[in-house]
């Protein structure tokens, strides 16, 4: 198990290092810049979805959905990162304590 974890960690580090070592010429192409920019946004959007409704056998709607909605409202009101995360945790915990989700 430790071996797999180390392999995944090493793959992540090499991926990041590759970004730092790429020749400038590759990065001069605006297409590359735009594509990497969009992949980052796409990865994060997908991670929001998976973390919010992901379950063992498909999508599940529970307290996490409330957490994301509250965090979105907080971010709309220009709340800082930490505040949005704490509000998300408090919402999920509150909903569960109330017996929902």
């Amino acid at each position, binding site marked *: 198990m430790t071996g797999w974890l180390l392999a995944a960690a090493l793959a*992540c580090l090499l991926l990041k290092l590759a970004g730092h*070592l790429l020749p400038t010429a590759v990065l001069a192409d605006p297409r590359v810049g735009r594509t990497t920019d*969009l992949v980052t946004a*796409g990865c994060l959007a997908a*991670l929001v*979805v998976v973390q919010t409704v992901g379950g063992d056998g498909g999508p599940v709607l529970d307290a996490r959905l409330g957490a994301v909605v509250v965090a979105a409202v907080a971010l709309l009101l220009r709340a800082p990162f930490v505040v949005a995360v704490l509000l998300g945790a408090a919402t*999920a915990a509150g909903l569960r304590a109330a017996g929902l989700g």
Partner: protein
Amino acid sequence: MIGPEPVPAPGALRRSPAVRQGFSVGLATGLDGLSFGALASSSPRAWGCGGGGRLLAAHVTIDESAAVSAAQDDLVEACRGFWAAGLGVFASWNAATLAGALVGDALGDPRRWGLDGAAAAAFLALLWPRLRRRETAAVAALVAVLVLPVAPAGVPVLAAAAAAAALGWWRTRPARGAA
């Protein structure tokens, strides 16, 4: 869910959501490294950016350090911002991990404390400044939702990343003179 969990076999770990999600986050930050690498290599003599520091720089290349450096106007400030954010998050992240390892058992089920909700909120907060790419984010989210019920954990994020890459590649005009 209190008490030790069964240790997964290697095959189970290969399907582990944590490993795949970690790799997806690694992919996203690897692409941050790409844009920061462009910045750093445009002036290798800039403060602490070039040369032997690159291995360490790669390690602390995360959303926060890439975003702080990208927000600066000149290169020296961009490098300072990169290291300040990168090392700052590195220190506090590991301190928090240590605290979690020491008192984590006393917490019991993390879901009771809404920690899964906090993780979802954190990903949303990271996505927030990038929502100018609304169309891509929407397409990626849709792909993830569609793939979620039919694929093993981790695959939805990778499929969404592939869809975003395809959008970026085909909808952007290639540089003049490039093939």
